[in-house]
C-alpha cells in the first residue's frame, strides 16, 4: 500500500514512438528540401502539388474536424488568394514573393466579415452558406475585367521571370515555397492544438455546452479559427496559381478541385486527427496516379470509398491504425505515466 502511494505519477504527451516519428519527419523534410537536386521536373511538380493539397487538407481538417465548422466553400479562399496574387503582381507591380504573403493577409481580412455573416447559420446550413459565399466570390471576379473577366488571365512572362533566373531555378523556388507552406501549416496547426486555445477548441468540439459553462467564448474561438484558416487557405491559393501560371473564375473557385477532393482526402485519411490529412493526401495521390485515366469512374470510386469510410470507420484510415496500435505521431493527447507497472 505504502509503495503504491509514493509511486510517482506523471503526465506526458510525447512517447518514444512520437519522438522517433518526429525525427523521421525531420529527415523526410530535409530529403524533400533537396528534391530539386535529385528529382526530375515532372516529379518536382507532382511533389509540389502534393504539398499544397496536404496544406489544404490540414486546414480544412482544423476547420471541420476540430472547430466543427464544416465548410464546403473553402474554394472561396483558394480562388481569392489566387486572384489577389495575380492582382498584386500584375496590376500593382508587387514582387511575387511579397504578393504571396499579402494575398494570405487579404484572405484573412475578407474572412472576418464573411464569418460575421455566415456564423448566423447553424450546422449543416452553415455548410451551404459557405458555398453561397464562394459563388459570390466567383461571380464577382467574373465581372472583374482588369483580370480578364470570365475567361481569366495568364501571369505575364516578366513577372514569372522576376521570381528567379532560369527555368530550373524558378521551378525549384515554386517547389520550395510549396514545401515551406506545408511545413508551416502543419506545424502551426500542431502548435495551435497543443496550446490552451487548442484545448478549448477540442472541448467545444466534444461538448459545446460544457465548454461554454467553463467560460470558453465559443464564438470567438471559432471566429479565430475561421479567419486564420481563411488567410492560410488564400496563401496556399496564391501558390497554387503561381504553379499554374493562369487563373480563371471557374478554375479558381472550383468546388470539385478545392473542396470535394480535400474533403475526400480528410475523410479517407481520418478527420479530427493531425495525421489523417497527411495520410489521406498520400493515399489520394497514389490512387490518382494509378486510376486517373478512368476519368469520372475514378471520381465515383472516390465518392463511394469516402461514403463507406464515413459509415464504417468514421475516424478514417488513421483511426484504424490508431485503434489497433494506439500510435500517435504528433503527440496531442496527454497520457498518465506510472499507473500500471
Amino acid at each position, binding site marked *: 500500500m505504502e509503495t503504491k502511494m509514493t509511486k510517482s505519477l506523471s503526465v506526458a504527451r510525447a512517447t518514444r514512438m512520437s519522438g522517433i516519428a518526429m525525427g523521421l519527419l525531420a529527415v523526410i523534410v530535409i530529403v524533400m528540401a533537396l528534391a530539386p537536386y535529385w528529382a526530375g521536373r515532372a516529379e518536382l511538380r507532382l511533389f509540389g502539388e502534393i504539398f499544397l493539397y496536404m496544406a489544404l487538407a490540414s486546414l480544412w481538417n482544423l476547420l*471541420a474536424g476540430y472547430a466543427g465548422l*464544416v465548410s*464546403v466553400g473553402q474554394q472561396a479562399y483558394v480562388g481569392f488568394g489566387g486572384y489577389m496574387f495575380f492582382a498584386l503582381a500584375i496590376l500593382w507591380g508587387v514582387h511575387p514573393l511579397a504578393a504571396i504573403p499579402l494575398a494570405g493577409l487579404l484572405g484573412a481580412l475578407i474572412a472576418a466579415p464573411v464569418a460575421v*455573416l*455566415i456564423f*448566423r*447559420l447553424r*450546422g*449543416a*446550413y452553415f*455548410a*451551404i*452558406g459557405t*458555398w*453561397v459565399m464562394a*459563388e*459570390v466570390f466567383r*461571380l*464577382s471576379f*467574373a*465581372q472583374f475585367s482588369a483580370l480578364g473577366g*470570365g475567361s481569366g488571365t495568364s501571369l505575364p512572362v516578366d513577372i514569372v521571370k522576376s521570381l528567379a533566373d532560369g527555368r530550373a531555378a524558378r521551378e525549384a523556388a515554386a517547389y520550395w515555397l510549396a514545401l515551406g507552406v506545408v511545413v508551416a501549416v502543419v506545424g502551426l496547426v500542431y502548435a495551435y492544438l497543443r496550446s490552451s486555445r487548442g484545448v478549448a477548441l477540442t472541448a467545444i468540439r466534444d461538448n459545446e455546452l460544457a465548454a461554454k459553462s467553463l467560460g470558453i467564448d465559443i464564438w470567438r474561438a471559432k471566429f479565430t479559427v475561421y479567419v486564420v484558416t481563411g488567410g492560410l487557405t488564400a496563401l496556399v491559393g496564391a501558390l497554387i496559381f503561381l504553379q499554374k501560371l493562369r487563373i480563371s473564375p471557374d478554375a479558381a473557385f472550383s*468546388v*470539385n478541385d478545392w473542396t*470535394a477532393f480535400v*474533403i*475526400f482526402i480528410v*475523410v479517407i485519411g481520418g*478527420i479530427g486527427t493531425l495525421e489523417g490529412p497527411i495520410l489521406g493526401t498520400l493515399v489520394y495521390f497514389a490512387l490518382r496516379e494509378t486510376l486517373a485515366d478512368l476519368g*469520372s*469512374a475514378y*471520381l*465515383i470510386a*472516390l*465518392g*463511394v470509398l*469516402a*461514403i463507406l469510410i*464515413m*459509415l464504417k470507420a*468514421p475516424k478514417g484510415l488513421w483511426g484504424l491504425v490508431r485503434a489497433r496500435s494506439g500510435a500517435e505521431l504528433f503527440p496531442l493527447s496527454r497520457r498518465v505515466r506510472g499507473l500500471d507497472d
Partner: protein
Amino acid sequence: MDWINTTLQGTLLGGLYALFAAGLSLIFGVMRLVNIAHGDLIVLAAYLALTTTVMLGASPVMALLIVVPLMAGLGYLLQRLVLNRTMGEDILPPLLVTFGLSVILQNLLLTGYSADPQKLQAGALETASLPVGGLSVGVLPLIVFVVAVLTIAALQWMFYRTALGRAFRATSDRQDIAQLMGLHRAHIFGLAMALSLAVTALAGVFLGIRTSFDPAAGGARLIFGFEAVIIGGLGNLWGTLAGGVILGVAQTLGAKINPGFQVLAGHIVFLVILAVRPRGLFPRMD
C-alpha cells in the same frame, strides 16, 4: 410597365425555386437533415424524365407519372439503406455522405448522358402565352407557379391534418418519445425522404422543360433552394414560397440591369436578408 413585367416573370420563376426548396425544407423539418445532393437529385429527375420521353415518346408532363414514383422509391431506399446510418447528434456524417453522393451522382450522369446540355421538349406548351392586362404571361411558368402553390398547400395539409403528418411532427419534436409511442423512426424517415424526392421529381421535370440542364447543374439548384428556405424562415413552408419569389424577383431584376448580374443579385439579396433578419422573414423554428 417593363419593370412590372420583370417582377411578374421573377415571381413565376420563384415558383420553381419554391419547388427546389420544398423538399429540402421537408426533410430538415422532420429529421434535421440537410441533403447536399438535393440539387443533383433534381437534375437526376430531369434526366430520368428525358429518358422516359425519349423511350416512350411521351410528353414530359406524362413522364411525371413514372418519374415521381421512381424518385420517391429511390428516396425511401436511400434513406433506409444509407442515410439512416448517419443520423445522430453529429452533423458531420450526413453532411459528408450526402456530399459524396452528390459527386457520385454528377459523375454517373456524366458517364450516362455526357456533358452536353439537354432539354425536355414540351411542344407548344413551351411558347404558349396569355395576355394579361397588356402583359404577356407564359403558360408554362404560370403552370409551374400554380403547381408550386398546390404542392406547398398539399404538404401543409399533410403536415397538420393527416396521421402521417402527425407522425412527422412527433418525430421532429422528440425522436425518442415518438419511438416509444410506437412510431418506427427509420420508416418515418424513409417516408419523409420519399416525399421529399417526389417533390424533387416535380421540380426536376419543370426545370428540364424551362431551361437546358447538364450533369453539373445540381449545385446551383441546391443553392437556390437553400436560399429560398433561409429567406422564408426555417420550418415555414409558405415562407419558403415567399423566399422563392423574393429570390426569383431579385434574379430577374438583376438580369435586367446586367445579364451577368442575374445570379449574383439573388445571392446579394440573400446575404442582405441574412444580415438584417438572420432567422429569415417568417421563422417558425430554431
